[in-house]
């Protein structure tokens, strides 16, 4: 088991600059989730860690060892591919024991290791089947099992849950969490699903266009997004971002009546999560209800706030009807620099 260190990591394909200087220390036993929209470079970064892509510039250390020029097979990392990459001509047992077979371990040892992991993952009845005879979820577990058998220093997961249906995915999320608690091995997990990131990670790294946007524990990313990109990417439904002006009287959203007390000054972007509103008659803003999405326990209101469209989450049952005008009070505000999108820090002593 070991941690990971990335120092000024760059990846270029000819003219295309995919990773633009990644710096990060991953502690031993951490569960790091790399998240970002498609094309942000997160898979490329993972493949660089695995050694499947060459690093153009910078250093990569696994534990204390610099591994830039170490072959993938010698890095002692195990990867679970999005497609699972199970060898179709080998049984589950052979798939899981493949790495040990390459390492020329005795057959008895391989069998013991495979049996142990198969038991943990409830794969014992499947050991003699071929991958083609398994369901998607079973294949996913075999892929996990194959990685675990190796007892690697680092696990690399490349969107491991994206091919599963919604209920299986949420089940496997819990499984992964348990697995991590039991193994205490460093995991780097790539996903585009921010729910996966929030639920699994001890730390999340948000990537966009090859640049790190923010790294931190899920709560911090959620509560103090470093910029408008992270603010909108993390949390569902997405944060409302409104152009606004701040002065001594407070913040006034462009084209909307009513000021809210806040320390930010000048032109800003104001962010409010849909869950951070209170519908109350003495609310500062007045908005028209355009559409209501009823989600069961909650309802998502799509509102017209002056010239802006915002969404607000309320608990069900709610008396609000479409076409109605309601008053709102935002409870938690996030202020960002209008030009750079960077968060305007809270004054010292303030709490969020």
């Amino acid at each position, binding site marked *: 088991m070991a941690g990971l260190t990335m120092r000024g990591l760059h990846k270029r394909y000819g003219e295309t600059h995919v990773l633009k200087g990644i710096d990060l220390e991953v502690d031993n036993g951490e569960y790091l989730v790399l998240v970002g929209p498609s094309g942000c470079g997160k898979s490329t970064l993972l493949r660089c860690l695995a050694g499947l892509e060459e690093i153009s510039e910078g250093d990569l250390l696994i534990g204390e060892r610099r591994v830039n020029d170490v072959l993938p*097979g010698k890095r002692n*990392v195990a*990867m679970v*591919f999005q*497609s699972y*990459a199970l060898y179709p001509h080998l049984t589950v047992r052979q798939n899981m024991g493949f790495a040990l077979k390459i390492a020329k371990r005795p057959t008895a040892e391989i069998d013991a290791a495979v049996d142990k992991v198969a038991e943990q993952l409830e794969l014992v009845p499947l050991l003699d089947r071929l991958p083609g005879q398994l369901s998607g979820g079973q294949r996913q577990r075999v892929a996990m099992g194959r990685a675990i058998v190796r007892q690697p220093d680092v696990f690399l997961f490349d969107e491991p849950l994206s091919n599963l249906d919604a209920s299986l995915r949420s089940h496997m999320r819990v499984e992964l969490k348990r697995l991590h608690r039991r193994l205490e091995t460093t995991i780097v997990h790539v996903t585009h699903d921010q729910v996966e990131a929030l639920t699994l990670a001890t730390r999340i790294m948000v990537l966009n266009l090859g640049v790190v946007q923010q790294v931190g524990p899920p709560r911090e990313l959620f509560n103090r997004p470093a910029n408008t990109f992270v603010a909108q990417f993390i949390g569902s439904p997405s944060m409302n971002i409104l152009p606004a002006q701040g002065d001594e009287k407070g913040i006034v959203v462009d084209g909307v009546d009513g000021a809210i007390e806040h320390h930010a000054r000048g032109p800003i972007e104001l962010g409010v999560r849909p869950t951070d509103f209170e519908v109350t008659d003495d609310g500062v803003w007045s908005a028209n209800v355009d559409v209501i999405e009823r989600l069961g326990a909650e309802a998502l209101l799509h509102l017209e706030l002056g010239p802006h469209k915002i969404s607000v989450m309320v608990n069900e049952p709610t008396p609000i009807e479409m076409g109605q005008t309601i008053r709102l009070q935002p409870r938690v505000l996030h202020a960002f620099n209008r030009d750079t999108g960077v968060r305007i820090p809270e004054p010292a002593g303030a709490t969020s």
Partner: protein
Amino acid sequence: MSRVKSLSVALGLCLAAAGAVHAQDAAPVELKLWHAYRDSEEQALLEAARVYKEQTGVQVTPIGIAFGAYSSKVETAVPRGNGPDLLIGAHDVLSKWQRLGVVEPAGEDSTAYRAGAGAALELEGKRYGYPLAFKTLVLLYNPELIQDPPTDTDALLAAAKAHTGGGSFGLAYEATAAYYFAPWMHGFGAKISGDDVHLDSPELIAALAFARRVGMDEGIVPKSPTSELMGSLFDEGKAAFVISGPWFAAGRKRAIAAIPLPTVSQTGLPALPFLGVEGVFVAGQAKHPGEAAKFAAWLAGPEGAAIRQELGGQAVAAKDAPPLPDTLETSVIRAVLAQAETAILMPTDPQLPNVWEALEDALRKVMRGAATPEEAAKGAEQYRKVLSRPPPEAANPVPYVVIMVLVGLGALVWLCLPLRDPNVRQEIKNKKVDYLWVFPAAVAMLALVVVPFVAGAAVSLFAHSQGEWTFVGFSNFLNIVLSRDWPVTSPLSFYYTLVVTILWTLTNVFLHVSIGMGLALVLREPWIRLRGVWRALLIVPWAVPNYITALIWKMMFHVQYGAINALLGFGGEPAQIDWFSSFSMAFSANLITNTWLGFPFMMVVTLGALQAIPRDLEEAAELDGAGAWFRFRHVTWPLLKPALLPALVIGSVWTFNMFNVIYLVSGGQPDSSTEILISEAYRWAFKRDLRYGYAAAYAVLIFGVLFVYGRAANKLAGKKVL
């Protein structure tokens, strides 16, 4: 107005023509003449036809047919009434043509001919054609190099030696061909036709030894010369003497002279070549036999001879042809005419092809140094005896027919068995329209595959000899399978050839797959630039027709002028590897050629199959610590296998029957040892006295071997691949 004019012209022509043929027949006569002449001889023929039309009004239309296809076309078309009025051919095919009804006895002929040419065209006391010209070997030479041509072989060898060296050769001739060996044979007093032929006679042994001396030991003759090579050597002034015929002299770019062949110094006997007499024949079932005979007599007579001599450069048979001036230009014709007086008329003995085959086999062995003249002559005599053996005794066809009919009925019943099931009948009824759609294809399959197959298989129960078909039952098969004619270790035995064929198939398929797959794997690598260009270039060998490739490789393997030996010389003197003198070298030459032809197919199949293997799998193995070989062995190869296996089976069947490469590159050399089953079958059918039945039995055995192989491959794969 123009119509009126053309009408009057046509009328005038008709009248003139009618007048010319004395108005016997209102319809204008058109005579069709088939020939295999080319270049100046064809020009002369066209000119003669033009002159004849001017004189008589009879239109003669010469139709040229490629030399290689000529006799088979004549022999199939003419007896069925699809032939011309006139044919040109040589005297040695006459008896066959007469038997097939290709030619008719000719009418009056007042022309006198030289050198017994008239008698050459007589059969059973009847005259069959009109002699046109002589074809025989003479000693051609470059008059710039040789002023005083030699008249005996010692002088010839001395003069030739003096002109050898520095890329030049004193003497060029096809030393391993029996036709070119005949003069030495006659010069030592040996005979190969008549009742009492023995190829192991002391005279023939002496002739073989002499041929070896001239062709090899003296080092004056270029190795394995083709007529093209000899032609270019002569044109470049690099060949002082050439033994060849008037055809060689045609179209030379340099002055050429000739004299009759010299006397063999050891015996004092003249080295006499064989003489061919070419004649024009009235075809069987000619439409205008009378007019045809008149034209034939005219063409052979003094007037026609003058045109052929003047324009065609022919050594004409007519005595009354215009005399030839004593100049360099006429030297070759005069030499041919002089040689014709003494040359030995090519025998028409039906056994001759067998003698020829055996003799050439011996000649090649001696030339290669694989056997002494005595050994070779002894082997040749044995070979001749087997070849000339009368066909197997006729068998009673009744039991065979009964068995065949029973088997056929049994098969039919077996095929119809499922019809007992009412469900199957209902199913067929429901899909009546579908079956209707399939019907034309089924009929085509029946006509194009099943019928020829059955007919071919039926031929294997017959023996064919001299145009006679005899039903012999399974004796062809017994002769082959029990190897009755040759020891099993002889290159002519079925088992020897089978082993060679299997070795040939295995080595080829192994190389095709390993090279093709290797290239496909390399072409997939991300660092390869211009991938598309490479891929296209590597497919080219497959796109070129394989006989062209085979001929190019054959030339490249030439011992003296081939590119391969030049390359193996690494910039210095070319290597002197005689690629066709030993089994291993000739087999390698075939193998190299066919590997060149065969790997692109496997490469394309592998490239396609690789597309279907996700890159992830190999990456997963790479992460698991697998090296390149382990990845290939345990991941890529097992996944390629299912796609490659059908290609492997198809490839091996193609290779098993790869006639073109064997026939064109090694030609079975040395001593038929590199022959594979299919080319061996071809030789039995077309080169060894037309033993169609024997060859068909080979073909049936080939089918059997491949059938068993296909079944075994299916079993091995655990699923149907064919």
